[in-house]
């Protein structure tokens, strides 16, 4: 693997380039991530820390954006000054590393428990809701004409239908999801906004330093639709990691998030619509866990953690139904 990565690097940086300090972080459900330094041999100043992301989830019913489109999206986001890992190069067939791409490495913490409870992140936590509102408002202002390739995502046309179609493809009945879907059908928000939606903006995908938000990671769920989906997903109970008194990602209040978003976007936040997207988010999180278990059970992505996801779907169904019963907020 490292020989192929080295060859891929030399195709872009010249035959004198080497790779050093290779780290394989053990995380990520749908990608193999490799962090490494590229040194071109001329000087220590040429050292660049990079990240390779190789697609590991290859299936017809994948909910994820193809890597070449993720790469295009990172180019657009970077152009608009959205903090994200700068795209460097795409993997090509001759690299024999599958589909994927390489970005700059951005330092910081993603591990939710540390961000939400370590004393050294207290200052960052105090800012994250406001920073999230600001960056999401800026993201949602990017003209959708620049990301027309997202039209191919089913989520760009019928987000709930896309979730139910995926659930159907896994062949397991989930009455709690069906009941949640009926609630969503009957309370559908009346808007036709068409904005760039990150799709996975939540604690765990935010790279955070002691001074606050550094970068948005994991763009594979991007699509177009209502930007308020991103606010609702961030407030979905599963991303509070036990800090249930702080609905915005376990670090802040909805009020601070909404106020910053309204200030930058120039229009007030419809709290009822955000709630709709929180309910949608709980349903979607159930479906994503069913997906992982299905991959383990039927598609050869064997993993004890994915097996656990299948059973953990019950935990998120519980949060979904407790929210519908107005016992959880």
């Amino acid at each position: 693997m490292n020989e192929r990565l080295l060859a891929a690097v030399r195709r872009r940086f010249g035959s004198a380039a080497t790779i050093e300090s290779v780290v394989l972080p053990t995380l990520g459900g749908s990608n193999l991530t490799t962090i490494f330094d590229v040194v071109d041999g001329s000087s220590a100043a040429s050292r660049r820390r990079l990240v390779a992301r190789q697609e590991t989830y290859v299936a017809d019913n994948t909910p994820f954006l193809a890597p070449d489109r993720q790469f295009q999206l990172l180019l657009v986001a970077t152009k608009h000054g959205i903090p994200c890992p700068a795209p460097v190069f795409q993997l090509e067939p001759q690299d024999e590393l599958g589909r994927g791409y390489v970005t700059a490495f951005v330092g910081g913490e993603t591990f939710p428990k540390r961000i939400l409870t370590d004393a050294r992140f207290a200052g960052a936590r105090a800012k994250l809701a406001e920073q999230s509102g600001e960056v999401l408002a800026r993201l949602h202002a990017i003209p959708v004409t620049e990301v027309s390739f997202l039209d191919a995502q089913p989520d760009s046309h019928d987000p709930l239908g896309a979730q139910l179609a995926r659930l159907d493809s896994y062949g397991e009945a989930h009455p709690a999801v069906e009941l949640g879907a009926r609630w969503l059908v009957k309370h559908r928000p009346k808007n036709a906004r068409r904005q760039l939606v990150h799709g996975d903006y939540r604690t765990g995908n935010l790279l955070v330093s002691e001074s606050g938000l550094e970068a948005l990671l994991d763009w594979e769920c991007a699509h177009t639709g209502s930007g308020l989906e991103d606010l609702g997903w961030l407030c979905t109970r599963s991303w509070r990691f036990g800090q249930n008194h702080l609905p915005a990602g376990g670090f802040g209040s909805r009020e601070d998030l909404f106020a910053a978003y309204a200030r930058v976007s120039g229009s007030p936040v419809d709290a009822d619509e955000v709630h709709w997207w929180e309910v949608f988010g709980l349903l979607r999180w159930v479906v994503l866990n069913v997906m992982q278990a299905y991959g383990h059970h039927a598609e050869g992505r064997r993993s004890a953690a994915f097996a656990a996801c299948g059973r953990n779907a019950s935990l998120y169904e519980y949060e979904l139904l407790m929210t519908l019963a107005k016992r959880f907020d």
Partner: protein
Amino acid sequence: MPQHRPDLAEILRTVRELTVELAPQVDAKGKYDLRVAAYLLVMAEREVALAPALDRKHHAQLEKLLGHPATDGELSARLRAGELDDRFDDVLAVLLDQVADSVRVVKPSQLDPIHQEP
């Protein structure tokens, strides 16, 4: 067919105890994997203890809700078709009780106090 000791519950507990014993001998990735294994095993232990009663209750609840013996598949299809829209609160009460029972097996510490055992 009766088997000699250990019974299924004790086999699961034995393997789970082994994951704890092995943890000091492996690296960080191995420790994580062993924790996942233990998580699955303790869930299986709870399932062995609780499943017979919870299965009976589940089927009885579905029969009462739909008026005949039924499966989760049938309930799901009827919900999707909107046939139970006018009984939303009834269905919610039954499903919340059933899902809470699933959580009792998967990770009971996640239950809200209203669903904790007295």
